[in-house]
């Protein structure tokens, strides 16, 4: 039983519980909220909502402002006191709203006779406008003797047919888009003069642009009432106005926002194609608010704060959610292609897909909207589409969107749905793509860089994720594509990375068509095909240590030390075309011959003393040949027991300085013997590779980099 004396504490607690929500009653808004606000008149009351401008998602905040059936329009956010103000149509008075959109009526000292529905606030002054009536303002400073006294700006332009306006965050001008013409007006609040500074290309026939907002970088957003479309315009270039997102349609709308807040996104799914396709939020990328139970592709969808552009795709930081589309056929100009599309959500969805057939970096050309508004039920579907006759062979991109909007665009935001971007190859018939290990997986090449001294066998001095694709036409290889990324770097010494094609002469490579990219950007002034070599050798980078920023943690290595994470990413891909296609039988075995070499003018391990071997230092996989620029003079020295040409880079126990691992592999922590981190590696070796072939899938977790 509860003692009587405790009852008073229970009473106080209950009182606190009941009254606490009301303590927030008159609280102002957050310092500068990132969401936008809307007032809309529904069901005989003014409702107040927040809008995520990035996707158009609308959430209702308040349906009872304590003003009954009164209409409140011309709402505006005051950065000075952090309250929202609006104009009450019935009372012809100003209204002040707290963070819960509960109203306090503030009568003017000189009440107007007209209702106003266009307003915004700047420098603690509320400005309001009506066509054929004029531009007015009142100070919101309660200490000012003219507080709530309406002032008319004589000579102001009164001809603009606008439904809302917004102050720029910094230049002091007001901007508005006229509903009937789409003209963007700049209004000087000092004298009310207005000029059209360009046309946005969008109008609101039979409706209005009822809400206008700025963001901190000076983009103006305006919302069309009848369809909820949100448009974004760069006020310095109104002709570049774009559809940005889709909010809920309404008959009445007015907007308020802190103009000094950025537009951000959260819980949002993006694609990962290059940004020329419109992928990031800044570039109005395709995006959706994720909704696990409605419209999505495949079995998964993830959220990002902004797009991660290829090659830094979202799967590197989250899950691989590009799982809803499988390309079942090659994409051959003039023929049909087929994809399998899995609608993973529970809702019937519309599929739209775009292909960059002419490879110009956008999806806006004729026939590039190849699948348009195809309604699909949940489940798996094979979908046909036509590859145009004029499609340009080569690597390109495609974008797939599902959602509840039939005529979705290839960029911009929608609340429901998912976007998935896929690399594609437009090719000729009878072409085969032979991937190693697969189209999207990597194997790992791991190096010890103390050669010819044995190292610590952690095999994390240099760790490269690595993939090769051969393009085969008429049974001959016409091109090799190699891509990869630096996975770890646990070395003091500076190493470059290169790939030799044993048996392929340098002269067989079409040097002018080689393309090397770092982090997705083509290196224009590089000559990757190394001079002075008999075999073809392409240099990916002269110094891997320059590809990541050192962390101030541990030994400043890259992803090899406990607690020393590093978000830097170095990726590469290189296209190596042959002048004359090469027979299968002449092609080197996989993984070709990737090797590390010494960076110039950098010291190395004790074996070299004060000598800096530079390019002459090479470490290859066991039994791979040194290149013409590598030195053979170190063979047989110290721990090395090479007998070139057939036996290279092995010590007396036949252990190598480099290994290939058949998966995307996590290395041992710094200084941890690989056999401690991966105990099955020993039996793999002792069984001559016949047992424990997946030794790399069985780590001691706390011994490997996570």
């Amino acid at each position, binding site marked *: 039983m509860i003692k009587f004396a405790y009852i008073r504490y229970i009473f106080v607690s209950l009182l606190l519980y009941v009254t606490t929500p009301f303590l927030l009653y008159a609280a102002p808004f957050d310092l500068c909220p990132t969401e936008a606000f809307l007032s809309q008149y529904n069901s005989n009351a003014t409702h107040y909502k927040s809008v995520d401008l990035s996707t158009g998602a609308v959430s209702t905040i308040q349906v009872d402002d304590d003003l009954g059936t009164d209409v409140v329009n011309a709402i505006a956010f005051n950065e000075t006191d952090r309250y929202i103000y609006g104009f009450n149509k019935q009372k012809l008075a100003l209204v002040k709203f707290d963070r819960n959109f509960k109203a306090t009526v503030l009568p003017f000292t000189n009440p107007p006779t007209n209702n106003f529905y266009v307003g915004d606030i700047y420098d603690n002054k509320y400005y309001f406008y009506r066509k054929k009536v004029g531009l007015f303002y009142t100070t919101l400073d309660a200490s000012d003797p003219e507080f709530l006294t309406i002032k008319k700006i004589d000579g102001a332009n009164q001809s603009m047919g606008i439904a809302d306006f917004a102050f720029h965050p910094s230049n002091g001008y007001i901007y508005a888009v006229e509903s009937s013409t789409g003209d963007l007006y700049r209004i000087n609040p000092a004298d009310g003069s207005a000029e059209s500074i360009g046309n946005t290309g969008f109008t609101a026939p039979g409706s209005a642009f009822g809400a206008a907002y700025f963001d901190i970088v000076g983009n103006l957003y305006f919302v069309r009432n009848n369809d909820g479309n949100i448009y974004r315009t760069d006020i310095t270039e109104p002709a570049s106005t774009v559809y940005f997102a889709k909010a809920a349609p309404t008959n009445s709308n007015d907007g308020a926002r802190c103009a000094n807040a950025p537009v951000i996104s959260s819980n949002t799914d993006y694609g990962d194609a290059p940004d020329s396709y419109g992928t990031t939020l800044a570039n109005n990328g395709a995006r959706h608010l994720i909704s696990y139970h409605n419209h999505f592709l495949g079995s998964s969808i993830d959220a990002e704060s902004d797009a991660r552009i290829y090659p830094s795709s979202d799967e590197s930081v989250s899950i691989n959610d590009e*799982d809803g589309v499988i390309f079942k056929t090659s994409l051959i100009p003039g023929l049909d292609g087929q994809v399998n599309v899995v609608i993973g959500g529970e809702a019937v969805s519309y599929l739209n897909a775009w292909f960059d057939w002419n490879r110009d970096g956008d999806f806006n050309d004729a026939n590039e909207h190849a699948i348009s508004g195809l309604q699909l039920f949940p489940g798996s579907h094979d979908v046909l589409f036509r590859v145009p006759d004029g499609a340009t062979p080569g690597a390109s991109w495609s974008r797939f969107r599902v959602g509840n909007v039939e005529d979705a665009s290839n960029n911009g935001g929608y609340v429901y749905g998912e976007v998935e971007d896929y690399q594609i190859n437009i090719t000729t018939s009878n072409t085969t*793509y*032979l991937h190693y290990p697969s*189209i999207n997986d990597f*194997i790992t090449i791991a190096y010890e860089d103390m050669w010819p001294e044995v190292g610590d066998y952690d095999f994390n001095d240099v760790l490269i994720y690595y993939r090769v694709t051969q393009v085969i036409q008429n049974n001959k290889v016409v091109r090799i594509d190699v891509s990869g990324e630096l996975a770890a770097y646990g070395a003091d010494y500076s190493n470059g990375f290169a790939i030799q094609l044993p048996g392929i002469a340098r002269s067989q490579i079409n040097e002018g068509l080689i393309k090397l990219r770092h982090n997705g950007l083509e290196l224009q002034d590089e000559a990757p095909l190394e001079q002075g070599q008999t075999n073809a050798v392409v240099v990916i980078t002269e110094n891997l240590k320059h590809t990541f920023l050192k962390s101030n943690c541990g030994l400043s290595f890259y992803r090899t030390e406990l607690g020393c994470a590093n978000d830097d990413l170095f990726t590469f891909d290189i296209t190596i075309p042959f002048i004359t296609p090469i027979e*299968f039988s002449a092609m080197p075995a996989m993984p070709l011959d990737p090797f590390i070499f010494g960076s110039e003018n950098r010291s190395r391990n004790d074996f070299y003393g004060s000598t800096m071997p530079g390019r002459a230092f090479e470490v290859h996989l066991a039994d791979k040949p040194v290149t013409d620029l590598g030195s053979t003079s170190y063979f047989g020295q110290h721990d090395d027991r090479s007998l070139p040409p057939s036996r290279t880079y092995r010590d007396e126990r036949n*252990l190598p300085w480099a290994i*290939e691992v058949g998966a995307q592999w996590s290395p041992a922590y710094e200084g941890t013997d690989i056999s401690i981190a991966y105990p099955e590696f020993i039996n793999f070796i002792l069984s001559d590779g016949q047992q424990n072939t997946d030794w790399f899938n069985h780590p001691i977790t*706390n011994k490997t980099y996570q």
Partner: protein
Amino acid sequence: MTFKQKIFICTVISMSISACGGSDSPSGNSITPPAQTVDGAEQVLAQGEDNFIPTASNNNSLQNINASSALNYQASTTMQLQIDSNSAQPCDINIYKQYDKFLGPVFAPDPNSQVMQINSNSCSYSGPIYILNQQQRLLAEVVSLQHATTSYHEIIISNNTITLSLD
């Protein structure tokens, strides 16, 4: 802490969460705790967890073993893939290394694991394929747009030549 302090704090907390006085169990059902010993249930010590107990493989660490010169430390083998068909019709053949297999059998390939995409005017292929050491089977997906068909063929890897007849 006194009871009255507890009840006050708990009431305040309950304004934001509704777990006051409740169980950690999501259902709120009570859970019978296991019989307790002074140090709780026995915990298995992971290999090397304390850096004191030698790991089982230490005697065989890389420092102490000899390998065969035949071991090349590479992850794959080049094999020959022979796909035959008498149809003389074009098709696309996709080879996957990872896939799900359901009753039927129904196959669901993992698109990220596609090893080959073959477009063939004669629905055939003869050439190399690279097989990872740990790979034991593959899935071939044959797509004919002419016949509007997709068929699947599971391939068990047993020797260095892989043959598949589509007839």
